């Protein structure tokens, strides 16, 4: 069509065109990187623990009665607690454990394979009562589960029975079965592997999210912790029962209750802030630049009324005028897009090197371009329609 004349006309309005081009370019750079940041956070949030997170409840007992200073009293009370919790209607399983999913950490140590080459592996380490796999909702893939008889109550014991995660088995035993093998800890205590379970994922400060063991034992020093798994939909009904039942076991203590969903939400606060903020940035940017395009196009229509009237008088159809403005905007948008592509990758480079960002996915860039094209068309449509409605009579009027 009239590509050449439009481009020449645009170059005569350099600054005004440049403003829109720059605006579109920076908008593209910002929204593609914003989409990229959102996507990176979503990847984090979609990471599955492999546990029945929605139906898990964490209970902490904080004893104040003097009797709890005695180890054997703590142990028997804790074991009674587990039985009391498991007996609550609507509860599928309960375990006394030092593990808490999604708390953003845990406890860790280093081990080597018994009879292996001595390589040390850092891994997460938790103590638990035998019900832990059923409570988390994970399955045994080989060997057997922990049993009550695995628990050795001797405080100076140097061996214990453990079940390990499948990823740890792969890491330490390189494809061989770990069942019947041993892990040697830094203090030379020996862990006998009786079974392997799967899956396990708990984000940790060090990259050991999938490596763990559960050692048979009782966690009671400084207060006992429990994980409780309830039947789907029964959470509301179970929560008020917990404290009642545990107080029956012993009333010399206070309790903290939290659902694992709450703990997980807390863990992802930063992700949710980033997602919320970047979504707002994208939406608002589209509106702001959109309004900008509407405004500038409107001015240019008003300014060119006479010219448009003359064109109409000379035989241009309404469609031709509409096309003229849409084409003009499309040329501007694309100039902005080309500059914006460079800016988008430049900004991404800065974000990756300075803020630990993720590399830009080209599909988000493509999405951003399509979004800006659509925005350009929508924003131009109204003023362009107004332009098409200009009467040819304008041409002959002097004022």
């Amino acid at each position, binding site marked *: 069509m009239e590509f050449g004349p439009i481009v020449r006309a645009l170059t005569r309005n350099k*600054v*005004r065109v440049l*403003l*829109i081009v*720059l*605006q579109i370019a*920076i*908008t593209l*750079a*910002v929204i593609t*990187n*914003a989409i990229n*940041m959102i996507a990176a956070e979503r990847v984090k949030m979609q990471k599955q623990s492999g546990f029945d997170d929605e139906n898990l409840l964490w209970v902490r007992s*904080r*004893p*104040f009665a*003097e009797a709890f*200073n005695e180890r054997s009293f703590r142990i028997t009370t804790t074991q009674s607690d587990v039985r009391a919790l498991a007996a609550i209607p609507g509860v599928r399983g309960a375990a006394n454990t030092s593990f808490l999913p999604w708390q953003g*950490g845990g406890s860790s140590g*280093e081990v080597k394979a018994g009879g292996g080459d001595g390589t*040390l592996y*850092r891994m997460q380490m938790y103590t638990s009562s035998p019900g832990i796999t059923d409570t988390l909702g994970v399955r045994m893939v080989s060997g057997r589960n922990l049993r009550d008889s695995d628990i050795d109550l001797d405080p100076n014991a140097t061996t214990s029975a453990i079940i390990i995660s499948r990823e740890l088995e792969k890491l330490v035993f390189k494809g061989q079965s770990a069942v019947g093998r041993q892990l040697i*800890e*830094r*203090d030379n205590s020996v862990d006998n592997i009786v079974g392997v379970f799967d899956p396990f994922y708990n984000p940790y*400060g*060090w*990259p050991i999210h999938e490596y763990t063991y559960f050692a048979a034992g009782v966690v009671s020093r*400084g207060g006992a912790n429990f994980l409780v798994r309830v039947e789907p939909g029964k959470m509301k009904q179970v929560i008020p029962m917990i404290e009642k039942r545990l107080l029956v076991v012993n009333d010399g203590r*206070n309790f903290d209750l939290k659902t694992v969903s709450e703990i997980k939400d807390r863990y992802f*606060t*930063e992700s949710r*802030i*980033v997602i919320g*903020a*970047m979504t*707002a*940035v994208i939406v*608002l*940017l589209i509106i*702001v*630049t959109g*309004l*900008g395009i509407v*405004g*500038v196009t*409107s*001015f*240019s229509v*008003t*300014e060119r009324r006479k010219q448009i009237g003359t064109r109409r008088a000379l035989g241009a159809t309404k469609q031709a005028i509409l096309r003229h403005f849409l084409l003009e905007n499309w040329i501007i948008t694309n100039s902005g897009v080309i500059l914006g592509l460079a800016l988008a990758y430049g*900004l991404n480079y*800065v*974000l990756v090197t*300075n*803020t*630990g*960002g993720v590399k830009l996915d080209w599909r988000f860039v493509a999405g951003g371009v399509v979004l800006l094209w659509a925005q350009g068309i929508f924003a131009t449509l109204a003023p362009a329609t107004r332009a098409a409605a200009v009467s040819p009579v304008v041409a002959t009027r*002097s*004022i």
Partner: protein
Amino acid sequence: MLAYNTRVATRNLKRNPLLAAIIVAGIALGICASTTFTTVRHMFARDPLPGKSSKIFYVRMDNWDPAQAYPDAGGGTNPHHLPTQITYRDAMELMRSNLPVRQSAQFQSSMVVYPDRRISRPYTERVRLVFGDFFPMFDAPFQYGHGWDRRADAKGEQVAVINQATNEKLFGGANSVGKRLRLGDRDFTVVGVLARWRPFIKMYDLTQNYVEEPEAIFIPFSLTRPMQIRTFGNSDGWKPPTGTTFDDFLASDIDWVQFWVELRSPADQAAYQQFVDNYVRQEKTRGRFPRPLNNQVTSLLTIMREFGVVRPAMNAMAAMSLLFLVICALNLTGLLLGKFLARAPEVSVRRALGATRADIFMQHIIECEIVGIAGGVIGMLLSLGVLKFIGKLITATTVISLDAEMILAAIFLSLVAGLIAGLYPAWRICAMQPAVQLKV
């Protein structure tokens, strides 16, 4: 003349209220976004102890495994990475030095409080074990009484400083100095009650959740051993204790104590570093500290940076929000240019009637600044709302609000945005030859 130009500018804004609203809304959004995210970042990044932070130093010593450096989050292998805390035994040795003006080893724990039966059931509370120097060192404000002195530290006196909320709960908010408080299996004497103290960053312990409130109760670090108190924070070790007793644990190479010193001036850092290095060299002769000599005496602001107190995402969001403001300013420039040029005939009449270029320029810049300020104020108000919301997300007990610094920054930003955006359009309109427009 300024008054007249201002009147003309406001009249021109009123002429097209919708356009004026769009322009103001654009600036408001830009200011809101940039103020909000730079404020969130600023809350984490700002100096928690203005005026003295350069004299406060955090001490770390590399007592890790000879075979490998202390691991870092990315799984990288930086041989200079060292544990974030030090051992109990080293902390006690460092406390012997006379170089620092003040110093405190410390850690967080949890203890059972046994209040008067009529007041409440016993409950568990977060407790921090510190030396008496802790309070003046970190500017802890007292409502009643004061901290304890070095003699109390040396003798391991059973004294406690409690926070305002605890004083409210246990003693009805009255001056409780001298009152008894049962913690665990011992009786303590309250020597001080803190006034409300809620630093946004708990700068004295950056090794765990540093946006939570300060602990409710503070007791002398010297009670650690007699009361067998264990940390509720992180403890890191590569070599297990040699036995299972509490003394074995205290003598082990497990790192669980934070150590801070306040030096007379930043220049004393080298001397103190020398002291720590000499101590470690001596320990090396006893077979400890097997890694190459690597001790770090790091100033408060530097350690905040090293521990990544400002989360990377905050930097990213602050950068994005500033770009957002740039886009809003470009947008504004385009709209103002159109708006001003559409007014060329009127400007020409004014010019013909004797308005100078400076008059016209001024009139238009004033118009830009009016929308700039209006946008800035609305943006700041919006930002207050958004910050309240984000503050709740970060922790339930903090309020993120605009401090004087951020309000000034926001006003400055909106004025600059209005000025920069308006400069070119105002220049264009005042540079126009009046003759061109008069004969229509």
